[in-house]
């Protein structure tokens, strides 16, 4: 009995010593070396939820600061491209109207986020926002990161049209494919889509009219032009010109193989006094931007930026291209004589 116990005791002591030795030995193991995961084979979403939130918050703060001071200089950290140009124009109009015209209410409070999955730059984030305060319609926002050392900046916005149904897109944690303006596999490439639509603004029954579904913006725009014509008729004429603003077409693949396409159309209205002795006076926003003298002796050119957004179905689809959103921002008014096509935008 005692012998057994002593053996047990010895065994336990040995176990204890061994334990201690093992634990101490653990302190002096080999230095581990990095074992990196293999690089991802598929492009990853360019932003994760927390960063999206961070970026959107920062953009909204920047917008709030700029709006409060009506100073576009404050926006440059977080706004770029057409969005910055539109905001600058809105600030100018707000100042010219002594605050009667206010900038489009913007919010980055997002409903839906569409994140690009790509290894390249520029990179995009599409956001469908909630309805901003003091507005009736949600917004489609596009943020882009020009290169790795740049920040994501609000690059584009437009108001969604009433009843617009945005196509379903991949979840943010999977990421969506960013499409180039000439991407194929769609009813019309993104660039074509915007070009066709800009043509339809001039001629509602022109080329590609059957590709697009009816939309309230085009209808309203045509009415506005008609009214303008009838007003100007007695003293002069109205000419229109439309074109896709360069470098403003962007697209993101949707879940059904189609695309969300955004772009900005330059819309120019030329007002020309043709009847000698008559007076042509610009009213409304154009008049405001003409400052002291709303009278047009020769010609005036009003330059609008028209940001539009489409849901373009895949090539094999019977569906028409849906116009999701469109807005109109008066960028500039230039008085020239004679009114030629080359009149500068001068929105900078």
């Amino acid at each position, binding site marked *: *009995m005692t012998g057994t116990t002593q053996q047990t005791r010895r065994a336990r*002591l040995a176990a204890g010593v061994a334990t201690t030795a093992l634990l101490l030995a653990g302190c002096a193991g080999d230095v581990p070396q*990095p074992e990196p995961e293999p690089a*991802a084979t598929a492009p990853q979403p360019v932003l994760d939820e927390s960063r999206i939130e961070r970026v959107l918050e920062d953009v909204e703060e920047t917008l709030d600061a700029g709006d409060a001071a009506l100073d576009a200089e404050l926006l440059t950290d977080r706004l770029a491209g057409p969005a910055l140009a539109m905001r600058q124009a809105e600030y100018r109009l707000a100042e010219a109207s002594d605050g009667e015209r206010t900038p489009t209410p913007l919010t980055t409070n997002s409903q839906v986020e569409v994140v690009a999955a790509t290894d390249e730059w520029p990179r995009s984030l599409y956001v469908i926002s909630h309805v901003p305060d003091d507005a009736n319609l949600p917004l489609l926002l596009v943020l882009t990161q020009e290169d*790795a050392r740049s920040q994501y900046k609000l690059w584009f916005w437009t108001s969604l049209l009433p009843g617009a149904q945005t196509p379903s897109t991949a979840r943010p944690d999977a990421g969506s494919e960013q499409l180039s303006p000439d991407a194929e596999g769609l009813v019309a490439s993104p660039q074509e889509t915007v070009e066709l639509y800009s043509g339809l603004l001039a001629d509602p029954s022109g080329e590609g009219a059957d590709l697009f579904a009816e939309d309230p913006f085009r209808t309203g725009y045509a009415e506005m032009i008609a009214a303008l014509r009838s007003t100007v008729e007695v003293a002069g004429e109205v000419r229109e010109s439309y074109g896709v603003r360069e470098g403003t077409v962007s697209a993101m693949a949707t879940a059904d193989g189609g695309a969300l396409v955004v772009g900005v159309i330059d819309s120019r209205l030329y007002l020309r006094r043709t009847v000698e002795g008559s007076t042509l006076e610009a009213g409304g926003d154009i008049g405001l931007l003409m400052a002291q003298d709303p009278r047009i002796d020769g010609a005036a050119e009003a330059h609008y930026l028209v940001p539009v957004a489409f849901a373009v179905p895949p090539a094999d689809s019977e569906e028409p291209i849906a116009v999701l959103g469109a807005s109109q921002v008066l960028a500039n008014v230039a008085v020239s004589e004679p009114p030629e096509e080359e009149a500068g935008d001068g929105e900078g």
Partner: protein
Amino acid sequence: MTRRRLPLLLAAVGLLIILVATIAAVVVRSSDTATLALDARPDVPVVITEPGVLDAVGSDVTVRATAGDDEQVVLAVGRTSEVEAWLGDADHARVTGLTSWESLTVEVVTGTAPTDAPTDAATEAPTDGATDDAENPAASGLPDPAGSDLWLAESVGTGSAELSWTDSPGRWSLVAATDGTGPAPELELEWGRQVSTPWLVPGIILGALALVAGATMLVLDVLARREQRRRDDARARREAAGEDEPQLSITDTDPGTGERLTRRQIREMERRMAEADRRRRAGEPVAPPIPLAPAWVEDDDEPADRSPDGAPPEDADTAEADAADRAAQPVLPPAGDRDGGTTDDGDTDGPDGPDDHSEPDGTPPPTGASSSADEAEGADAADEPPAPPSWRSVWGFGGAAVAGPATTGPTPTDDTDTTDHHDDGEEQR
């Protein structure tokens, strides 16, 4: 002697195991962080880590960076691919791995822009950074990393910064810089190493078991010894008194039935034995030694207590009658009577048992009795493992131990031996 030493040893070993396990765990835990640093402050504007470095030791890393008191220090973690894109071809230092448990392996990458940066940052005195910076600011050409949308985690401080990062799927790189143009800060990575103390809990449990076992054995041993001493004392007194009466002794097991008595029963018996001795010496009538077991104390309520059922004591006229009665029906209430009777019947060796038995309370006949008393005793015995010897065996109830009316008991020496022997037997069981 060994019987006493064994529990002590057991307890000591238990304590030792607990102690060793705890100390080992504490020693290991106190060194459960690994802190690795750059050998010197780099003179390139930024230090990055290659993928896998941040989780080389553990998934949770704390990064600390220090620079001059008024310098901005930026620590950030981003996707390696994006960090590389952000770097472009700027000069930078890359942490590629771990040289030792104290230092990181650093490799300086010189961009395409002309630069006189030495290839080994570690050899360059940190103070040279300023000149370096002034000479070729364009070579660095990095924007201020603070606030970039690329960073998943970022910490910006003045003079120093600290950043905690928990690894997640993907390839991640740390970016440590000041303002993108000045030399990068000194860098230190600290991991909470996953120190396992697999022996701590088992060690404590094992030790505790040994300790408890040892303590229990020790207590039991002490109790057993106290019993032994008491018995020895009693015997010694008798012997000192020149007693030549047959010695009564108690063994803990009835050789016939294998039953064991509780300690209390033994104590009572001993008391009664002493009483009997006294009476004998005083010339009083003494009950026959054999059956006297539960009956000795006539003017004593002990029997009531001793019965598991709390039986009232019987009124006995004489010691003999008393003894006989009690032996026959050991102080149980009706149910107990029956049991006692049965027991006696079963044992048959008790001189008077069967006859006297049925008298007192008109209890059911012995034959109808169950063996519950036996069971009760057995249960008692089971509850107290080191149970003393069965009084039956002691008193000769159990079969061949005592033949005939045992007016004479075994010799004292035999008794003692027997007792010890039985004790040992108990333990071995």
